[in-house]
């Protein structure tokens, strides 16, 4: 089954009314007709209309979306799965919400950065226009600000890793709870700083906020060795880190060594495909219902290999979150590309987007 948006929060009388007239439309739903008038009226899946697109940097935009129903809210730092139609095909990706949970205008925002080889970010950054309808999936993620917010905070972000931090900052700003926040952000050049203007505004508005901006193109990347100089009391702060994997790994070890690991929260937003999971054996995949066969090396997910061989397969987030792509394993074993763990019992439901075959397998897809 293809991935669909979250179930919207529809008022009970409206749900009841729709259910009452269902018999007139069987096997369809009243929704199927109402959507012809306005696609946002779907009570099956939450959709939203792009309200505004703001250029942040030359390759980053903020997309403001007005949900079809009242936004159920999110915790600052969480991400949202979003579905868009590109060249006839529905694609799903997860992006950190960069808006605070209770914007007065009811909109939500994501801030995608262009990945040239990608599918969805080129669409959102270059092609999407106000008025376009997108699908809004579930809100997920455990990289969130505790409530109430800790007294002393440390944010470390790099590049587009700032996106979940931005939602946290905005939320603190709106609640006027920016008491003691140290923020170290690095970007390659001045023009690559996402939210530069907004960060400076917050800096001016709150004496308790200290922004340390580092241009890694000139000054090099931030490493654990810089911490004592940039933020001497880092050990006593609740730290939130978001950025590329190498930075998180290095910092994580440092917190561990210093015995303050419990103060650290990290956002590993991209699954580590090809990281620990590389070096598998790979194998031949047979897709039972189409009869298509595909050869996958140890780093190629079953989904990607199957698509390359011409199989039409269900897919969603492509990062192991949504379970849209699952197929029943008929025989063989698979390797989880995120953890490197080899597993596989006959009949097990396998997420094809994050598993590679380990030897020949057959899957009921």
């Amino acid at each position, binding site marked *: 089954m293809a991935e669909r948006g979250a179930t919207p929060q529809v008022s009970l009388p409206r749900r009841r009314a729709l259910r009452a007239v269902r018999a007139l439309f*069987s096997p369809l739903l009243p929704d199927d007709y109402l959507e012809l008038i306005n696609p946002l009226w779907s009570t099956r899946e939450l959709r939203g209309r792009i309200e505004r697109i703001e250029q942040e940097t030359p390759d980053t935009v903020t997309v403001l979306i007005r949900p079809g129903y009242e936004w159920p809210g999110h915790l600052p730092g969480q991400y949202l799965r979003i579905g868009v139609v590109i060249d*006839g095909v*529905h694609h799903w990706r997860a992006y950190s919400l960069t808006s605070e949970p209770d914007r007065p205008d009811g909109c939500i925002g994501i801030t995608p950065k262009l990945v040239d080889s990608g599918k969805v970010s080129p669409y959102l950054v270059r092609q999407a226009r106000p008025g376009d309808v997108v699908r809004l999936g579930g809100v997920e993620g455990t990289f969130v600000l505790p409530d109430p917010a800790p007294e002393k905070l440390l944010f470390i972000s790099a590049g587009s890793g700032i996106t979940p931090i931005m939602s946290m900052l905005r939320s603190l700003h709106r609640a006027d709870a920016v008491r003691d926040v140290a923020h170290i952000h690095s970007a390659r050049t001045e023009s690559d700083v996402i939210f530069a203007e907004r960060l400076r505004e917050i800096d001016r508005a709150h004496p308790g906020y200290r922004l340390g901006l580092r241009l890694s193109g000139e000054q090099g990347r931030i490493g654990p060795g810089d911490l004592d100089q940039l933020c001497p009391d880092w050990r006593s702060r609740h730290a939130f880190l978001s950025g590329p994997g190498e930075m998180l790994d290095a910092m994580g070890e440092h917190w561990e060594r210093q015995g303050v690991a419990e103060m650290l929260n990290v956002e590993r937003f991209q699954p580590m495909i090809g990281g620990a999971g590389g070096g598998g054996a790979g194998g031949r995949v047979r897709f039972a219902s189409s009869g298509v066969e595909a050869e996958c090396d140890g780093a190629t997910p079953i989904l990607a290999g199957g698509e390359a061989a011409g199989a039409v397969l269900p897919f969603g987030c492509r990062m192991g979150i949504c379970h849209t792509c699952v197929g029943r394993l008929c025989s063989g074993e698979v390797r989880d590309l995120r953890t490197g763990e080899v597993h596989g019992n006959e009949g097990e439901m396998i997420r094809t987007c994050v598993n590679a075959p380990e030897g020949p397998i057959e899957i009921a897809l």
Partner: protein
Amino acid sequence: MTATSTEATSPLSHLSGEQLDELGRELDSIRDRVFADLGERDRRYIESMIAMQRRLAASGRVLLLGSRSRPAWIAGTAALSMAKILENMEIGHNVLHGQWDWMNDPQINSSTWDWDTASTAEAWKHSHNYVHHTFTNILGKDKDLGYEIMRIDPRQKWYPVYLLQPFYNLLLMAFFEWGVALHDLDFEAIRSGKKSKAQIKRELAGIREKAKSQVVKDYIAWPLLSGLATAALDAALEARRGRSGRRRVRRRRGGLAGVLGSALRAGAGAYRSTASADATANVVRNVWAYAIIFCGHFPDQTYTFSPEEVEDESRGGWYVRQLVGAANIEGSALFHVASGNLGYQVEHHLFPDLPSTRYAEIAPQVKEICERYELPYNSGPFGQQLGMVQRTILRLALPGGRQRKKPGPYRAEEHAAA
């Protein structure tokens, strides 16, 4: 008919194993080319087709709220019939084949779609997509409707019950959706014990559920709604007439019962005429679906196969069986849309999960392959194909019968001349 003479007429006999493999590769590459090219244009087509069908259905239903008026009945029934035809043929059949699954759309998807007919999507996908499209025209294995209850091929053994075939043929025509729903149960599998009790129970419950919602919608809910609307309108008009009348007091007293009685009569009339319109639309759709589907495999040109003939069949051999076991119907663009592009039955059987709109585009390539490999490309006008099918049904109700003459290899010049 003896085994030797079938072999002599087998369209495959002149092709070597290597040739069949090459043919398979050529057809595979047609499929690959189309799949690589699918995109926004195709999505726009199916989405606008679905939107148009729903608008048509909604207009038909609204017109039929006033079904007591003759013109509204005719226009409403016509719109509803057309909507039901499109829903079953160009939309339902093709979506359930998975032709639009590549869009990854949560609704327009073979795993979630349900259609306006008595069969459950699940049972139909098994009996049609799997059994019929895999074992096409293999006698005793293809459980397509015709082969199950009728004698359409002279190689099928004659039983006295086939004497009744001309009559139940007509019944099937009118109540096709119910015939298909029962057929999907696969009585033979039940008789031979191949189906578990639990599965039979589940399938029966599925049909009961589908049947109930079909009957409620067409024969209770919509007629009731138009009955109520008509009664309310009648009462309002009566009351107004009463108020504007000169002898207001007297009319109102005797009038209330009169107004109610008249409204009730009008409502009951509307109920009946809307129910009859819905029944008519269902029968129109049934007859049309029957005609298109029976023209797909049962005209004289098509070949049937014995299980022995298809033992160890290669991919190329499978393609040839699909190619010669089906027959196209020639017609206008509107005809092809209304028939769900099953006028391109040959192309559909070669590539059942290719979006239907692409069949017309690849037809010239398929013909060209037929010409090079000296294979038939079965095709004919609608009237001729349907006539041949009916002739066969009548003739084979009686014992005996011969295979009809087959058209032989496709020649482009002949067709150009004709």
